[in-house]
């Protein structure tokens, strides 16, 4: 159901030159400054979509991320026309075997299980591999008793896996239920765009839900709705800000503000604060 799956918006295809062009306002941006700005346009504030690697690089403490299940990939349970070729194509283009990348890391010294979905791999669509990887990440977080932090974007369930992909909604939600029973914090960060089957399952079940400024967020993609019902949606519907306004998201922040907020939340939420203990004297007293 990923409506944007074929939209050509390369996020890691920036020419190796010194300059890059903002995909929204068209201004030329000095590459080194763009990196310093976390790939946010300093003219219009547009937040360029990040690959999983880029996201991990600006989130986890340097060198702390250890990826798990790197080779877990979708099979083709339906023998769907053209699907294996498509998978191979995305794998070649992104260097990933699935949109979801997960592993252990520290963030400001605090251990976390980190999940990042990469939109460049088939619109971040959820097939059986993505569902399995999320569940393993959640189970690992429960075992290690450390928070699960998930940066999520997706066009939705992966059509080519049919009913198998739909069932991942139930499977991932069940894993979140187990995390809840284990008293493990689960933090979601909605990134552009977060829609459909992923938004209607584990992405909507965070204990704390943050979203990145300007991200498309909605059950149905806005373009799908406009086409299906032949209506014009009001500007700003189906965005992170809209979801915040309607009570679905705790805070919408810029990419620059994101990590500091995450660090504060992890200090407040972590079951066993291992960061700066002096700052969270009540943490251990109230826990267990």
């Amino acid at each position, binding site marked *: *159901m*990923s*409506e944007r*799956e074929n939209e050509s918006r390369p996020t890691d295809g920036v020419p190796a030159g010194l300059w890059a062009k903002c995909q929204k306002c068209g201004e030329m941006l000095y590459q080194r400054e763009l990196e310093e700005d976390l790939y946010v346009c300093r003219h219009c504030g547009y937040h360029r979509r990040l690959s999983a690697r880029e996201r991990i690089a600006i989130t986890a403490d340097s060198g702390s991320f250890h990826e798990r*299940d790197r*080779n*877990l*990939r*979708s*099979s083709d*349970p*339906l023998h*769907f*026309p053209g699907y294996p070729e498509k998978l191979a194509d995305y794998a070649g283009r992104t260097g990933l075997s699935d949109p979801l990348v997960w592993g252990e890391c520290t963030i400001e010294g605090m251990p976390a299980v980190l999940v990042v979905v990469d939109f460049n791999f088939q619109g971040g669509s959820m097939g*059986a*591999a993505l*569902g*399995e990887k999320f*569940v393993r990440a959640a189970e690992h977080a429960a075992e290690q008793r450390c928070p699960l932090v998930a940066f999520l974007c997706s066009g939705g*369930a992966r*059509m080519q*896996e*049919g*009913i*198998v992909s*739909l*069932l*991942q*909604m*139930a*499977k991932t*939600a*069940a894993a979140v*239920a*187990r995390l*809840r*029973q284990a008293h493990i914090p689960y933090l979601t960060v909605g990134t552009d765009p977060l829609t*459909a*089957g992923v938004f*209607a*399952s*584990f*992405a*909507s*079940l965070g204990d704390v839900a943050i979203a990145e400024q300007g991200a498309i967020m*909605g*059950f*149905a993609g806005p373009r*799908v*709705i406009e086409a*299906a*019902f032949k*209506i014009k*949606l*009001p500007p700003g*519907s189906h965005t992170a800000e*809209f979801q915040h306004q*309607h*009570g*679905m998201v705790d805070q919408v922040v810029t990419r620059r503000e994101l990590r500091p907020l995450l660090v504060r939340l992890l200090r407040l939420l972590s079951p066993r604060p291992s960061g700066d203990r002096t700052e969270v004297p009540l943490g251990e007293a109230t826990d267990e």
Partner: protein
Amino acid sequence: MSRWLPFDRQLREVEADIQKLERLLTASGISDERRVRLREEVAALRRRQEQVTREVFEMLTAWDNVLLARHVDRPYTLDYIGAIFDDFVELHGDRRFGDDPAVVAGLASLNGQRAAVIGHQKGRDVKERQFRNFGSARPEGYRKAARVMRLAEKLQMPVISFVDTPAAESRLEAEERGIANAIAENLELMSVLQTPIVVVIIGEGGSGGAIGIAVGDHVMMLQHAIYSVIPPESCAVILEAFGRDPSRGPEAAEALRLSAQQTLDLGAVDEIIPEPLGGAHKDPVAAAQSVKEAITRALQRLSAMPPEELLTARYRKLRGFDHFREA
């Protein structure tokens, strides 16, 4: 493309002819000789009708199946509720915002045993279809279902869920009230609800809208129901494999493997409930009887399981939807 749809129309005409003949049979002043002849003709017509139906149904295409599942004469949730339960009291409202007529929920008695019932409800005529929002549930519908499921857990009675929806409501008002959140919370709730859940997909199992009330210990599908991640027409529009052409929905239907048998083969449901020849709408009483027997059997087995075992088995099942490779 569809052999079944024109055939179904024809079948209705033949049925009307047969009924005319039968009326003639009951008329007074008809000679014995004529009566015998007419009776034979009726019997022959019935035999022929059954044979042709059997032949057509042996060769149903995926698209036939989609049309059958959406057939306007097919029994809907309230039809099954009326036929299956000794008593049913409907409960309204989600205690948050409103009541959604696209979902019915209530308390029922099945063979004298208590049960909570939830289900999508479609409408038959234009007015009722609008009232029921074509079976597309809003956030309030999912939250009403959640409320009644929590009640079932509290009072330790099983949940029986009937699934029949094209998709969840996705327009702006639904978005404003958190349709994605409502579905997601039901998925989580149903994965850990401490009471048996039996699900019957009676018609259209349409993507997120369906699964929002379709997580359970025993999930069944009527023989001609469908269960799909996306309507085949939409799938054809989105994918290059079908030339982004909505008229190639029948091909997409084939590729999506959305029939009951294929869904069972993929491990996504646990049991198929056979339908009367020609589809559930040909004999709603018999269809309801089959559904009732299947639910009763499932509940007998599940009620005997200790709660912990029930939940472990449920998680193992959900955890096990695992078609992937590690290499």
